[in-house]
C-alpha cells in the first residue's frame, strides 16, 4: 500500500484550523488581538472567533487593499493585527499595501495567507498563489513563513502575535501529519531537521514537507538511500547556517515548494550556495512556468512531482 499524507495525518488537523484555534486562544486573554477579514471568515475558519470576540474582528468586505491598509492603521495604534485573506489575493491585489503600509512603514501586521499555493486546486490560477514567496522575498522588513504541520503553525502564530516586525504566514487547508515527535523547537529563520540522513537532503516548506518525508521513507525502504528532510518553514530570513552545514556534507540537495520554481525557496537556496562556493548537485521541484494543470491540490502535486514518487525519483537522479 502506498503511504499517503491522509493516512499519516491521522488525528492531526488542517493548519488552517490550528491557526483559527490558536487565535481564539490568544484573544481570550488579550483584547489587543484583532482579526481583519475580507469576507474571509468562512474560508479562514473564523466564524467561531467572530462569535466569541465580535469586537475583535473587523470586516472590510472583499477589498484586499483596504484590508491591509486598515490592518496597518490598527497596528500603528498598538493592536496585534492578523489580516486574513486568501494568499492569492492578499499578496497580489494588496502587494503595494504590504510593501508600503506594512513593511516600509514598519507596522507589524501579521499577514495570513490562507488556502495558499494550489490549495484551491481546480478553481484555477486566479486562486493559486505561486508568486508570493518570490515577490515578498524582495520586500525589506518582512518575515516570510510557510509552516508545515500543526506544531509549526501554532508556534508561528504564537510567535507572530508577540513579534514587533511584519510577518507573512501562508498555509493550506489540508490535514497535515505531525513531522516530528522529538523536534520541538521553533523560531523564525531556523529550519527544522525533521529526519536525519546521509545520502541526500530534501528541503521542503509548508505542505511539501509531508511528501518529502514520504519520499525519504520510500528511498530508504526501496533503495537503501538515507535522506535528510528539512522543514524550511521560514523562506526569509533563510537559515544560512543550516544550509551551510547541509552543503558542507556534500550531499545532493533537493528543494520542494508549492510555488513557482522561480524566485522561491529553491532559488533562494541556490543563490546562497553558489555565492558561497558550494557546488552540491541541486534540483528545484515546484510548479513550472506554465498554465497549471487542472486538478485537486494532490493531483497538481502529483503531476509536478511534489509527491512521494516524484521527490524520490529526483533524489535517485542526483544520488546516482
Amino acid at each position, binding site marked *: 500500500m502506498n503511504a499517503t499524507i491522509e493516512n499519516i495525518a491521522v488525528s492531526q488537523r488542517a493548519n488552517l484550523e490550528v491557526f483559527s484555534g490558536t487565535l481564539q486562544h490568544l484573544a481570550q486573554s488579550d483584547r489587543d488581538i484583532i482579526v481583519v477579514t475580507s469576507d474571509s471568515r468562512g474560508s479562514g475558519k473564523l466564524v467561531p472567533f467572530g462569535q466569541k470576540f465580535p469586537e475583535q474582528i473587523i470586516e472590510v468586505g472583499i477589498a484586499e*487593499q483596504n484590508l491591509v491598509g486598515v490592518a496597518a492603521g490598527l497596528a500603528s495604534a498598538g493592536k496585534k493585527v492578523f489580516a486574513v485573506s486568501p494568499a492569492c489575493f492578499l499578496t497580489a491585489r494588496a502587494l503595494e499595501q504590504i510593501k508600503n503600509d506594512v513593511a516600509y512603514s514598519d507596522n507589524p501586521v501579521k499577514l495570513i495567507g490562507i488556502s495558499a499555493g494550489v490549495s484551491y486546486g481546480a478553481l484555477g490560477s486566479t486562486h493559486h498563489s505561486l508568486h508570493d514567496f518570490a515577490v515578498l522575498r524582495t520586500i525589506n522588513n518582512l518575515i516570510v513563513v510557510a509552516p508545515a504541520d500543526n506544531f509549526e503553525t501554532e508556534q508561528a502564530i504564537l510567535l507572530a502575535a508577540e513579534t514587533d516586525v511584519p510577518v507573512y504566514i501562508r498555509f493550506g487547508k489540508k490535514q497535515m501529519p505531525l513531522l516530528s515527535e522529538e523536534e520541538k523547537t521553533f523560531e523564525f529563520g531556523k529550519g527544522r531537521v525533521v529526519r536525519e540522513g546521509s545520502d541526500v537532503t530534501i528541503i521542503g516548506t509548508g505542505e511539501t514537507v509531508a511528501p518529502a518525508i514520504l519520499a525519504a521513507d520510500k528511498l530508504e525502504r526501496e533503495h537503501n538511500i538515507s535522506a535528510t528532510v528539512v522543514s524550511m518553514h521560514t523562506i526569509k530570513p533563510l537559515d544560512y547556517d543550516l544550509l551551510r552545514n547541509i552543503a558542507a556534507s556534500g550531499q545532493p540537495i533537493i528543494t520542494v515548494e508549492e510555488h513557482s520554481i522561480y524566485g522561491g525557496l529553491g532559488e533562494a537556496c541556490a543563490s546562497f550556495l553558489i555565492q558561497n562556493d558550494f557546488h552540491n548537485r541541486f534540483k528545484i521541484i515546484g510548479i513550472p512556468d506554465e498554465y497549471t494543470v487542472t486538478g485537486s491540490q494532490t493531483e497538481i502535486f502529483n503531476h509536478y512531482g511534489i509527491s512521494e514518487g516524484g521527490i524520490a525519483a529526483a533524489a535517485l537522479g542526483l544520488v546516482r
Partner: protein
Amino acid sequence: MLKVMSEKELAQKSVEYRKKILKYIYQAKAGHTGGSLSCIDILNVLYNHTMNVGPDTFDSPDRDRYIQSKGHTVEALYVVLASRGFFPESDLETLCKYQSHYIGHPTRKVHGVEQNTGALGHGLSLSVGTAIAGKLDKRDYRVFTVLGDGELPEGSNWEAALSASHYKLDNLCAILDKNTLQISGPTSAVCNTDPVDEKFEAFGWAVRHVDGHDIGELVTALDALPFEEGKPSLIIAHTVKGKGVSYMENQLKWHHGVPDKQQYADAIQELDALEVTLA
C-alpha cells in the same frame, strides 16, 4: 502646549510657510511646489489650531493623528513639523540630499510623521484603521488625512470610504485638497471625479465645502467636527495649485517645477509684500 493663534497669526504663518516651502525646494532643486502651496493652509490650521499633537505628545496614544495621503507634497508637511518643533528646521537643508532622512515623501524616520506615504490611495485606509483602533480603545483622538483630488481614482480610496462609514468613524476627517490640477492636466479632464461631494455623501459621509485658503473657513469647519455623529467627515477644500505665487497659480508646470534664481526671488518678493499687508 499649543499656543492659541488668532486667525491673523495663522494667516501670517501661512505666508511664512510658503516662503519656506519655496526656499527648501529651491535649495534642493526638487519638490512638489504647486501642491505644497495648495495644501499648506490646511496643514497650518491642523497643526497650529486643530490637532492636539506636538513633539512632546507624539508618543502619546491619545494624540490626534495626521496621515498625509498625498505624500508628494511633503515639503508642506516638513515645514509645518519643523515650525512645531518636531525637528530643527536646519535639517531641511538636507532635503533630498544623499543619505538624508528628509526624502521626497513622508517617512517615519522623520519625527512627527505617522505613516510612510507617497504611493497614492493609501492614506484613507491607514486612517480608517487608526480610527477604528481609537473607537475600540475608547480613546478620544481624531484622525486627519489630506487627500489630493488627483488620487481619488485610486480604487482603494473608495474601499476605505465604505469602511469609514460602515464603522461610523466620526473620529475621522478627510480633507480633500481640491486644486483641480494633476500632473497631466485638469483633474476633470484626466478622470473626472465630480460631483465628489455627492459621491462621498452616497458613501455615507458628511461633507462640507470650504475655501481651502481662507483660514477662517478652515477653522470654522474643523471646529465643527464631526459634522454628523456617526459619520466620517469630509472637508472639500477648494484650493489653487501654486497659491500665493501669481506666476505659479493654476499652472501645470509647477506641479513639480523648481524655480530658478530669478523666479525664486520674484516669488519671495511677492510673499514679502503680502506679509506686509498682513502685519
